[in-house]
């Protein structure tokens, strides 16, 4: 780990101000992702701004919806009575991720901003465009099964590992932020993450130093909700593929550089297609890369089964 300086932000404004003024600064919340990466020197911030104690952990009603503070931990959100009652897909998604210990530390903001689990990203001896733009991508012809089938590029085939974000995208959540200049912004969470393109090191549309302050859920859509995740072991493993269904809304995880809103599938379902047909339509553009070919049938099957389950039909 490289030496770094540290401060505890007094409030959100002070946090973004410090971020704007200090070169190489990063926010740290639960630290469950950032610290691991710092130990491997995959991240080497010169300055850490600790936002974990900012009073932004409340989960409260906002109109007919729910506002989740960025510092609410994954465990708090998953266990919240309103979330469990009205947004069960979110609880299911969160508890399928990481482990109990990690979820107790991990925050809503940090979870959205966590970085890929691509094994080559973690091994600094291998070329990786995300770590070092222009270096090349070891995963492209590598032996990892955990690569993207949707929206990947020749520069990067990594997937976004968050489960929570997949449910939030299906729920049409919005993100609230504070920009470095102190302005509050609010935009659909679906627009937070980017596809890799030629710049896989740019993962979100946040301005450097922009702080996520909350996630806002609109009232839940009509219809059943369900999250399912396929993986090698029953816990503490990222998804080969996952799917969140909330009424007519569908999002996929483990298949792309961002939580993947399945708009094609949604349209097909709305037009009366069967779940299988809808998934087939969604995956029409999907491409296998090396070891990940199994993800195509897996995503199609898991997707269709989960849509049926959310509707109360036999999977």
């Amino acid at each position, binding site marked *: *780990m490289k030496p770094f300086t540290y401060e505890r932000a007094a409030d959100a404004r002070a946090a973004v101000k410090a971020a704007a003024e200090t070169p190489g600064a990063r926010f740290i919340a639960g630290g469950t992702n950032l610290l691991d990466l710092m130990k491997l020197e995959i991240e080497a911030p010169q300055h850490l701004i600790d936002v974990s104690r900012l009073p932004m952990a409340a989960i409260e009603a906002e109109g007919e919806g729910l506002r989740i503070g960025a510092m609410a931990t994954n465990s708090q959100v998953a266990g919240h009575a309103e979330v469990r009652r009205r947004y069960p897909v979110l609880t299911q998604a969160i508890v399928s991720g990481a482990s109990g210990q990690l979820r107790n530390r991990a925050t809503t903001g940090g979870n959205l901003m966590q970085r890929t689990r691509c094994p080559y990203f973690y091994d600094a*001896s291998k070329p990786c465009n995300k770590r070092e733009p222009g270096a090349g991508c*070891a995963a492209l012809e590598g032996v990892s*099964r955990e690569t993207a089938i949707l929206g990947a590029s020749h520069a990067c085939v990594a997937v976004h590992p968050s489960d929570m974000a997949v449910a939030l995208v299906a729920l049409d959540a919005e993100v609230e932020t504070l920009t470095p200049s102190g302005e509050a912004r609010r935009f659909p969470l679906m627009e937070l993450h980017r596809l890799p393109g030629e710049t896989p090191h740019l993962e979100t549309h946040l301005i450097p130093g922009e702080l996520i302050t909350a996630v806002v859920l609109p009232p839940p859509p009509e219809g059943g909700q369900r999250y399912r995740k396929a993986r*090698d*072991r*029953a816990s503490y493993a990222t998804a080969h593929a996952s799917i969140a269904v909330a009424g007519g809304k569908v999002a996929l995880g483990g298949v792309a550089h961002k939580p993947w809103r399945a708009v094609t599938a949604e349209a097909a379902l709305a037009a009366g297609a069967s779940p299988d047909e809808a998934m087939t339509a969604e995956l029409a553009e999907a491409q296998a890369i090396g070891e990940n070919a*199994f993800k195509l049938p*897996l995503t199609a*099957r898991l997707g269709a089964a989960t849509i049926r389950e959310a509707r109360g039909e036999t999977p």
Partner: protein
Amino acid sequence: MSSVNDWAGPNPVKDNRSGLIGKGVDRYEGPLKVTGTAPYAYEVQPPSPPAYGVMVGATVATGRITGVDIAEAEAAPGVLLVWTHRNVPAQPAKGTRKHPRSTAGSKPALESDRVAYFGQPVALVVADTLENATAAARLVRLTYDAASPDVDFAARKAGAGQPPGEEDVEIGNFGEGFAASAVQLDETWTTPIQNHCQMEPCASLAWWEGDRCIAHTSIQMVKPAQHGLAETLGIDRDDVRLMTRYIGGGFGGKGQTYDDLTLAALAARALGRPVKVAFTRQQMMHGTIHRPATVQRVRLGADRDGRLNAFSLMTWTHCHRDGAFTEHASNFARTLYAAPNRLTGHRLVKLDLPGAGPMRAPGEASGTLSLECAMDELAERLGLDPVELRIRNEPPVDPENGRPFSQRQLVRCLKEGAQLFGWDRRLPTPGQVRDGRWLVGYGMAAAIRGNFLLPAKCSFSVDDDGVITVRQGMTDIGTGTYTVLAQIAAETLGVPLGQVRVEIGDSELPPAPGSGGQFGAATAGSAALMAGMNLRKAIAELATGDAESPLHGGDPAKIVFQDGVVGIENRSETLAGLIRRAAPGGLTVEGEIRPASDMREWSQQTYGAHFCEVGVDPVTGEVRVRRMLGVFAAGRIINAKTARSQLTGGMIWGAASALTEGNPVDPRYGSLLGQDLAQYLVPVQADIGEVEAIMLDEVDDKANPMGIKGVGELGNSGSGAAVANAIYNACGVRVREYPITPDKLLAGLIARGL
């Protein structure tokens, strides 16, 4: 040398007067370990503040180091020294044995500019803090002339040769027997590289007292570590004191020392202060040994009623370019089933991968994954129950060498297991049982693992308080050695458990071979029993010969030891009182065990039967273990709790081998893909449902004076095959390429229209 018949007489372990033998006594160090207060080597407090060494691993798999730039690292805060092959102190060439009786040769670190595997330690940075050393280690700049690594096992398999000094074993004529068999099976299985993933990564602490090196390290076998370090340092063996008091798991991966020990000792000498060096979790994956991958071809030829006429298990495997290790996955098969025509053997190819070496149940753990699934497939072709097929092929004597079995209760394990598990509810046609979204299936497999006894010594002391101290250069790698030695001592001397102290893990203590090959408890425990018997004799003679003792003049052979009291009929006194008066300062005696000369006249194994219920999600190919039962016959059980833990731990590992564990090789870089415990998947609690291990009553009086056998590896033999067979029974898909992950299963599920 003695005969096994000498062991048949009564002794305190067999008499078990106070009932301590067999009791599920809690591990003495359990609370220490779970509260983090059992000091591992890295946590031992040295006499003065230590410096911290961090190793740098090679980032290529093969080639030469051509450029070394350590200037920036040397100038970094707190750095005390930076070594590469260019400036490390001279060490005797690898394998040097100056002392003819050394049990290990020199293991020089940073020996040359040659890189022989990815992750090989190529530099050391020592600093005043771990953080400074870690930061400076990243500043060591090495350039390589890298060659293209030769690591593709599948591609190189065709050129594999006989392991040195080995030949195939053929009995009868396999080819003819197989050709003439009414029912034939010929299938090939593959198993991947596995990493040990001990809770405690390898670590060492060393300091010098004058010309003596004091080292704490995490090691399964004390003597070879001590000897190897002395050879490496070029000093007398007695000038190395090597300790390993608490160990966070070994599994065979700590049967040898690594560069952490060599470098800690060298740096401590150079700096004149204690030095700690540890592997990080990531470094463990490449920097220490692994279980190598195998390809196993099984051929079974049987007549229509299921009697095997011909069987063959041929194993291909790999080891490091400079190594000699062979994963003997075919060996166990020589003893398991009867068949007149038999062919087994191994082929080995050398690769530029890190070192291959032993891992829990070496041989059996890999080999049962093929043969025990092949038996399942054969049973299906014959329309026979898999339990019955095994019973039909039960040999009356060892099928390869004709020796009688010392004990063989495999059939009883199979029958009792089947009954306890409810095996009769299994539907032989796969894919018939559903529970919600899960397809449910049952599978079973046999377990076998050799039993061994090695020479060992032990000393026993009694002090003025009547406290018994056991001293032995043995190790406790988390298996319960401390506790079972205390049980044996307490039972032998008739004192409460709380009145026994056990000191192990120190090269100054009477030598024992350590922990490995599931010989630990039998070997160390037998030496302890011998030493305990000698102490009884010394105490008895002391009492009967002491004019002030109420036992004076009695027959020493008639003395009873119980509850801290020594007595003959109605005359008695306390052990403490006797010692205080008649031998103030206490008594110390030694004892030793040696394998009896006629021990090899028996075929000696431990046995078991695994039964397993799994759920397969037909949509995703995910598998979850719902229930596992193992029934084992492994001699007398000294501690029901530690034995059960060993067996269930082995069973879970087997399930992991079937389902998740394996580290793919990236042939471009010669490196392994999984480099931490988020990527290399060992099972978690949620993966494993109910697990139960039942131990049958057994006493094996040919094994050792206590009639006990090993249990540490047996559970890992066969349990993976039981899982694989259950998967087939659940969904009708056979995957012969381990681990059986969803990607592999899915193709079969789709092909079956599921």
